[in-house]
């Protein structure tokens, strides 16, 4: 796998565009199809792609395990935090109208942060599951 020149070059070319597309799906989710779930999966897929081509240790160097585990929890925390922000500003839990003077603007803000939280958690979980599956069998017992 390590000597596949074509794969390595194509991978290097494509991965930035995959990440860019993930961001597009994330922030264009208000206007077209897309949103946090899809963008999270796509950005995790970009890193998984990298891991498949360059080997798992390279991917682990790029996005270490500790970072991934932090991301998993951070996303949920952001989502919950948006809820509590609404509560602190005098609305109901997960009420976005109070996040800004203009209710519509407040909605925008709430949805934006919630989608960010979804993105972070989904990307983290997908990446972590891939690390776990791919990392098994190489360390202790090699597969059959």
């Amino acid at each position: 796998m390590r000597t596949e020149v074509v794969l390595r070059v194509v991978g290097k070319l494509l991965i930035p565009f995959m990440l860019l597309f993930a961001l597009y799906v994330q922030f264009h989710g208000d206007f077209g199809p897309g949103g946090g779930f899809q963008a999270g999966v796509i950005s995790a897929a970009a890193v998984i792609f990298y891991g498949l081509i360059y080997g798992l240790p390279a991917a682990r160097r790029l996005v270490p395990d500790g970072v991934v585990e932090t991301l998993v929890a951070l996303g949920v925390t952001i989502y919950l935090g948006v809820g509590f922000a609404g509560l602190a500003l005098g609305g109901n839990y997960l009420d976005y109208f109070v996040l800004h003077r203009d209710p519509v603007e407040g909605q925008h803000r709430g949805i934006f942060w919630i989608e960010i939280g979804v993105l972070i958690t989904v990307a983290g979980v997908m990446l972590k599951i891939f690390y776990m599956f791919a990392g098994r069998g190489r360390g202790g017992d090699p597969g059959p």
Partner: protein
Amino acid sequence: MMAALTIAIVVQRNLFSVVILSGVYSFLMATVLVALDAVDVAMTEASVGAGISTVLLLGALYLCGGEEAKPMQRPLLPLVVAVVIIAALVYGTFGLPAFSDPQAPFHTHVIPRYLNEGPKETGVPNVVTAVLASYRGFDTLGEVIVVFTAGIGVIALLRPRRKGDKEKRK
């Protein structure tokens, strides 16, 4: 075509082709969803069903080998259970309103409000996003927590042993 694929998946004994066929199935499902105008769902199906889960299943295959084990006994009881459940579900579909009936409850309950007021109230042109993140914020919170719990579960089950254990095994 999808029915043919499903039969192929069931009959096939080589797990590698099963994984690839289920990826193909996901892509077909995504095209069906696009035809039904559910672009958001189609996108999720294509990226999760065909992309990530294929990679994960291939990873699992790498660990457990490529041939399906022979079943222990003839699967007669499961067959009976499956047939009964299918009959019950088909019977249940007769109670549903006709396809694209404008008087169906889900066309008259909250959907008109979401469609008419959603863009005005949230300022978000994509109704799916508006409903998902704003009107149904609690449901989405639940979904995120489900994903989070799945991740935590996998970490708890598959996390490599502590350093002491590793040295012992060596």
